[in-house]
């Protein structure tokens, strides 16, 4: 009997444990929750915080309804905006107006307006890290102007806004800077790159609604220095190089003039690997950025003879040199913005913690002005595509 009693006691204890942990009162049915997909944060001119939550409306996308009523009416996505002294107040204002409970468990994207970005993201990080269900892998974006502009972006392929931004990241078109990355960077001085979005009115993407011929795309990257957005930005092309330096680029296309007749040759680059290594000689700290990639020729209008290995080697050299120049250009730009955006300080901290601690205080200056960075890019031209000669060459025109 003692054994049974003990079992009973154990079971009761387990049950009591459960009661303490959480219970029916924290249960929420799916149709009593509002799942926030996108969080938009901006600052108004009178220094108020403007919080906008992007919430998909499942009741407008009930699939395959009986009787084939077809597409449900209305936009399946909605934005709710409130302004307040701070984010918590704004969230509270949103919540009291909503019939459902705001849930941050599905938030994948946080977009910050320029004014807020220049003001610093401390408040945003604080807000995010205090929500236990908030995904730390939510991606950060910055808009060049007011953040609300994004709500006018057309949904062509995807149903909801966060999907578009998420796919930019997943397909490696833009830098993947998560909330967590940002917080980690704050420990090293708050220098990081956050992708910028760009908006325009050109009908570049086929638009369903001709009245709003707006579009949204990735527009370079904002350079953060000391937790605040710097005035200097990376252009889309520089942004691509930044991706390359941080090994986030999967493939890209480069176009160079042919060394023989100045006509264009396009290279498809893949297998990109970049390593950043600190080198310490005496008290001299320098960095080496090594990058390797494979390339093949996507298009060539030149009469260049690609059968000749000599020529190929020459092309490789040209390519590597071009990319090296781009690297140096981007690195210089971050130096100008006084932002250690590629987190070289972290590399130094990992490999030579003592040296890092000794120069922690003057690191920013050192990075911006003195730090020697050696760049070495090796691109191998693996294939010339399906043919050797260009169509122009072939048809003798």
């Amino acid at each position, binding site marked *: 009997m003692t054994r049974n009693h003990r079992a009973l006691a154990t079971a009761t204890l387990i049950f009591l444990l459960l009661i303490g942990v959480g219970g029916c009162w924290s249960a929420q049915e799916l149709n009593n929750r509002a799942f926030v997909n996108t969080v938009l944060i901006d600052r108004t001119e009178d220094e108020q915080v403007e919080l906008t939550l992007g919430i998909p409306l*499942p009741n407008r996308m009930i699939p395959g309804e009986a009787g084939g009523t077809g597409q449900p009416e209305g936009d399946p996505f909605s934005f709710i905006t409130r302004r307040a002294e701070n984010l918590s107040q704004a969230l509270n204002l949103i919540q009291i107006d909503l019939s459902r409970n705001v849930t941050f468990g*599905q938030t994948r994207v946080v977009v910050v307006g320029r004014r807020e970005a220049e003001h610093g993201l401390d408040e945003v990080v604080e807000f995010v890290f205090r929500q236990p269900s908030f995904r730390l892998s939510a991606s950060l974006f910055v808009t060049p102007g007011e953040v609300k502009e994004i709500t006018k972006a057309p949904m062509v392929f995807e149903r909801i806004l966060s999907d578009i931004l998420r796919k930019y990241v997943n397909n490696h078109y833009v830098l993947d800077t998560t909330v967590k990355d940002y917080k980690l960077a704050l420990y090293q001085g708050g220098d990081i790159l956050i992708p910028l979005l760009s908006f325009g009115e050109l009908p570049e993407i086929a638009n369903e609604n001709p009245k709003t011929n707006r579009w949204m795309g990735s527009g370079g990257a904002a350079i953060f220095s000391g937790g605040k957005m710097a005035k200097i930005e990376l252009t889309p092309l520089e942004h691509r190089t930044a991706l390359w330096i941080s090994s986030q680029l999967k493939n890209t296309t480069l176009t160079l003039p042919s060394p023989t007749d100045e006509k264009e040759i396009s290279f498809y680059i893949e297998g990109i690997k970049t390593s950043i290594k600190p080198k310490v000689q005496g008290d001299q700290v320098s960095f080496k950025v090594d990058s390797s990639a494979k390339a093949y020729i996507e298009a060539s209008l030149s009469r260049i003879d690609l059968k000749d290995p000599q020529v190929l080697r020459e092309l490789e050299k040209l390519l590597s040199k071009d990319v090296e120049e781009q690297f140096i250009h981007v690195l210089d730009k971050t130096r100008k913005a006084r932002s250690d955006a590629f987190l070289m300080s972290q590399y130094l901290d990992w490999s030579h913690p003592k040296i890092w601690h000794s120069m922690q205080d003057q690191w920013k200056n050192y990075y911006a002005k003195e730090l020697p960075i050696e760049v070495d890019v090796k691109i191998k031209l693996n294939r010339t595509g399906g043919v050797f000669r260009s169509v122009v060459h072939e048809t003798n025109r």
Partner: protein
Amino acid sequence: MPIIRKLQRRKHSLGGKSGKTPTLPPSRTDASSLADGQSLQVRLEWMKQVLKDSSDIIYREFTISSGQSCALVYVRGMIAQETVQQFIVRSLQRESALLQEKNIYQFLFEDKALSVSTATVIDDLNQAIQAILNAEALLMIDGDKRMLTFSISDYPTRGIDEAPNESVIRGSREAFIEDLEKNLTMIRRRIKSPHLKTPTVNKGRETRTSIVLAYVENVCKPELVKEVQRRLSYIDMDGILGSAYVEEIIEDNPYTPFPQLQYTERPDVVAAAVLEGRIAIIVDGSPIALLAPVTLPMLLQSAEDYYQRYIAANWIRWIRYFFVFASLTLPSIYIAVTTFHPEMIPSQLLITIAASREIVPFPALWEAFAMELAFEALREASIRIPKSIGQAVSIIGALIIGTAAVQAGIVSAAMVIIVSLTGIASFIIPHFDLGLAFRLLRFPIMILASMFGLYGVTCGLILIYIHLVNLRSFGIPYMSPIAPLMGKDLGDTFLRAPWWKMKNRPALLSNNENRQNSNPRGWVKEKGDFE
């Protein structure tokens, strides 16, 4: 075949309890009051008194050629009439020449010269009545206390049929029937070894049901046989109408949903089990044999596993394990994740699920409970419904529960998918009783899930696991060879090792481990004619 069995039954009769005669009321029906019991008339009268109002008993009185009067007593319809007529009545009446020379009593009882295959001499009238009721013919003769019983039963039984519940593709098609003798022949035909032992006990005060144990002597642990017999000896019911009666009496822990004896309707499964050192318990009148001991992994093996190629069999076994888990937890995980942890669901999927739940008025738990209960009802109805209108159930089930409920917005499509997946999963479990156990346990876990989320599900699973490792079937831990871990026996648990790898019997069950001696694929090394 009946002859062999009869002989065996005598030989291995378990003595004591089995030989007990039925208790008859004393006074007029007390056999001891019949003086010396030689008079045919007195004995017949007594018998008629005992068996009064039994219209199916035939008393056939006749006079044999040597002048004594005889009586044949048997149950109508259970005796081969032809044999009675041809070899008993006719020979006794006509073979006068032979009879006159010899003493008729010696002829009958000592020489057993009647040309009927099995004749047994008895002199106890109570035993005689038992023999009559057991489909034997009784011959009594005036002037001798002794009587003869003939096992010439011939009553209609169902023919051997295809296994309806445990069907396989490549295995044998035979299934047990209600007739004990035929069932035993099916096992004996598979194991033609003198080591196969089949002792009998008779249980049931009124039904006098034969219960036969079958085991292979040099494989099965003798303690196990003794233990089964000990437990069987406690049976003291008025009737044993099926093996389930026996199961409930002899199982170790009666307060658990989990079956601690395996049942099967397949003689090949019995043969395989017996060859591994387990005991089969076969009950007369029941087409279901019991196998003891049993472990949970054994209940998840299907006969087909051993007939298919082992690679495919392995894959199917894993699928089965997966769906066992699914049948237990799928609805509760769904409830827990959607009501407590929606951040675990990928956004796109969540939106789809949320959209399908949008107009559902009930909480997820009620939705799941309603659907699961409806499914249980459907399942039960489809078993009980007369076959001729069986189609109606599936139409109602598919239309009302599958489609209409979703269209009306009473349950969400996601829930219908979950419930039907769970239903299918529970039918994948080869042992029906085990499937029932998991189906039953699903409901408390669903409640835990709705109250405490995944934490509740985990705690529920842990409690079930604690219960499982505590169960024993005839001394064998229920979760072995997983807990306690027995490396040697794992070859037939998560895997189904090829036959040439399974060289030993499960060490858990048998002391005589060696199943096959030399390397069965030794021929590969020798050069044959086809290389």
